[in-house]
């Protein structure tokens, strides 16, 4: 669709942050990486596709923010000291922060497709995609949806044991 071509067209590099394991520091690393790249003068965005346990909004202290719509789709929430890092997470779509997202695969897949095609990212040097643990719906859908774009590669996070 035209929107798809428009919304990610200005993104130069897309990085996935993966692990098989939970609790190893994917979200922490995604956040630190985004902040470090921003510090180095790059235009950065974070896409949080952990739908059941979205950690990024809280890490960037925007857990109470809401998203708005514009002509080309959703406007990301701008975070960081200079409000220049673009962030999208399901965390912003919940009515209450403790609400559980109890969705089966197909519904998760539909939202991930929307996050990829319907967020007005604008021009970015790096889009960092934070993922939940595992090798399932979120991962398959994210890779499939991003395939037509500049997918730079994946960073895998682990702990020593």
């Amino acid at each position, binding site marked *: 669709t035209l929107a798809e071509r428009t919304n990610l067209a200005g993104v130069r590099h897309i990085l996935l942050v993966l692990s098989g394991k*939970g609790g190893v520091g994917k979200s922490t690393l995604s956040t630190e990486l985004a902040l470090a790249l921003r510090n180095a003068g790059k235009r950065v965005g974070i896409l949080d596709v952990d739908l059941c346990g979205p950690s990024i909004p809280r890490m960037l202290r925007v857990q109470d923010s809401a998203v708005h719509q514009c002509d080309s789709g959703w406007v990301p929430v701008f975070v960081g000291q200079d409000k220049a890092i673009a962030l999208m997470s399901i965390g912003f779509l919940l009515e209450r922060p403790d609400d559980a997202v109890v969705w089966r695969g197909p519904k998760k897949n539909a939202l991930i497709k929307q996050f990829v095609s319907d967020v007005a990212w604008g021009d970015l040097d790096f889009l960092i995609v934070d993922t939940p643990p595992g090798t399932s719906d979120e991962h398959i859908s994210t890779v499939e949806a991003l395939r037509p774009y500049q997918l730079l590669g994946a960073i895998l996070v682990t702990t020593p044991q």
Partner: protein
Amino acid sequence: AEAAELRARLRAVRHTVLVLSGKGGVGKSTFSALLAHGLAADETKQVALLDIDICGPSIPKMMGLEGEQVHQSGSGWSPVYVEENLGVMSVGFLLSSPDDAVIWRGPKKNGLIKQFLRDVDWGEVDYLIVDTPPGTSDEHLSIVQYLSATHIDGAVIVTTPQEVSLQDVRKEISFCRKVKLPIIGVVENMSSFVCPKCKNESQIFPPTTGGAEKMCQNLNVSLLGKVPLDPQIGRKSCDRGQSFLAEAPESPATLSYRNIIQRIQEYCEQQHLQEEKIM
């Protein structure tokens, strides 16, 4: 007809405990393994440990059963036995190599979980412990749905003290309430660290928002206990598949685990007595 099949298979299961978290890496599998060992220490009890983490099955390694395969018989799939009274099932036993990725979408995962319940010949079981992956998705919905054929005593929810974990655990508590799954209580893992040399206590994961204690108070759930971080747990249990309770009986972590296991047993036995009264 399917529900009847499941009901028949699970009829001889007395107590079922789900081990959940919203958060990954907090110690669900470690706890499930030790709970199973702890309950099986009583040789008169038959314990079953079911691992429904399809993408990241940790139980085979933690129980020292890597490389084991599942055998079929006329009565179904045979669990892999650690002890005579402790049987285990996991997708890990179905892989040709431990590094094989199970890259499945929800429906396929649900299918395997149903098979685990329908086709495994668990026999007579006093305690069925179900270890789950992090989250509130297919695996969790399915296990609650399929186990409605029997009776789930409740869920034990594992967390670590920091807010980034509690945030996800509150969602898990919401999930339990939504699907009417009783919550036995919360375990706060990796609570503190005692240096083996200087015996000084540090908080590796500071409870910046009051830890599990505050969360439990706010949400009116039981705090079953706090388990300190003991590097022996990782070394012995997680990576070597030994029972930490047996290998390190003097560790403060072992004492915490034993207290928590006892509380879980008491909860299950109480429920049983109450139901017998009603019947």
